[in-house]
């Protein structure tokens, strides 16, 4: 069995899902499920399915954009996709403050960024959650942790295992000796991750801003 027809169907349904982006979720699901069922019924009725047959089925259903336009009209939604995908001051403000707001005014700068992020219509809920939890405080938190651990590592300390039979400390490892290299490496990896995470999140949110209008035109 060739997989090309499956790919075509999959791509068609994906495209439809994107086009129905602004239609309420339950209705979007209903329409996509029914059309997936329609395709399955039509394919089941074929004796020897060819790629051309599947293309004809999809052509018969019509352009996903046309189906989405019909859905908007039937559900009395705005005729075209709303324009909030255009990045305005709110989106720029959210991106800047989420990243470095915590550096300008500790905590509050970042919090304002979060408020702007959730007020904006440019991102979906998943994007907003990602923007909020990676990483609370943005680079402000990263730098705070960087300073905190840098000063803490000067104070030293030791890690011990307790021998259960004697109750004595054994295998004491002084953090100033070279045997703590592993922990130091872990610490550095974590710190680097905490510095990079807000940068990655910002890049991701910026990418999502750019992606939307392209999808709307497709």
């Amino acid at each position, binding site marked *: 069995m060739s997989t090309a027809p499956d790919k075509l169907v999959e791509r068609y349904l994906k495209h*439809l899902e994107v086009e129905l982006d602004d239609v309420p979720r339950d*209705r979007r699901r*209903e*329409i996509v499920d*029914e*059309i997936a*069922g*329609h395709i*399955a*019924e*039509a394919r*089941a009725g074929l004796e020897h399915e060819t790629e051309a047959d599947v293309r004809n089925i999809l052509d*018969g*259903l*019509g*352009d*996903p954009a*046309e*189906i989405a336009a*019909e*859905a908007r*009209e*039937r*559900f009395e939604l705005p005729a075209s996709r709303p324009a909030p995908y255009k990045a305005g001051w709110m989106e720029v403000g959210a991106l800047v403050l989420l990243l470095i707001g915590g550096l300008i005014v500790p905590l509050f700068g970042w919090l304002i960024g979060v408020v702007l992020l959730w007020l904006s219509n440019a991102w979906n809920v998943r994007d907003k959650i990602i923007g909020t939890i990676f990483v609370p405080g943005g680079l402000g938190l990263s730098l705070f942790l960087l300073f905190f651990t840098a000063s803490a590592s000067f104070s030293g300390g030791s890690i011990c295992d307790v021998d259960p039979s004697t109750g004595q400390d054994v295998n004491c490892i002084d953090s100033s000796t070279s045997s703590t290299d592993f922990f130091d490496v872990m610490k550095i990896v974590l710190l680097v991750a905490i510095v990079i995470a807000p940068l990655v999140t910002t890049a991701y949110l910026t990418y999502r801003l750019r992606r939307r209008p392209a999808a709307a035109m497709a």
Partner: protein
Amino acid sequence: MVAVKQEALLAQMRKGTLQYCVLALLSDEERYGFDLVRSLAETDGMVTSEGTIYPLLSRLRRDGLVETTWRESTSGPPRRYYRLTAAGRAALDAFRGEWGRFRDAVDHFVERKAG
């Protein structure tokens, strides 16, 4: 410009009457989506893109004009069957009366002008 307007007008007329065609198809028996769409598509000039029926079905269901039940199918996954409700039947009957008068009135003028 005029041609575009006329095209849009015809599309609107088709769209406005399509839901009553769907209700009429359901007046004798319940049907599943693919079956309904195939019946509509068999008649030339009614539906250009089969997929556009599904938003309409969803809307009719939400308006309480049709209701749906899932039934097992012998040939594949379960199918969602559509059935007229009392409100759907009333809407269809009301439209039938109005449509008959409207069609006669339009014929009266259009056919005389053509002849």
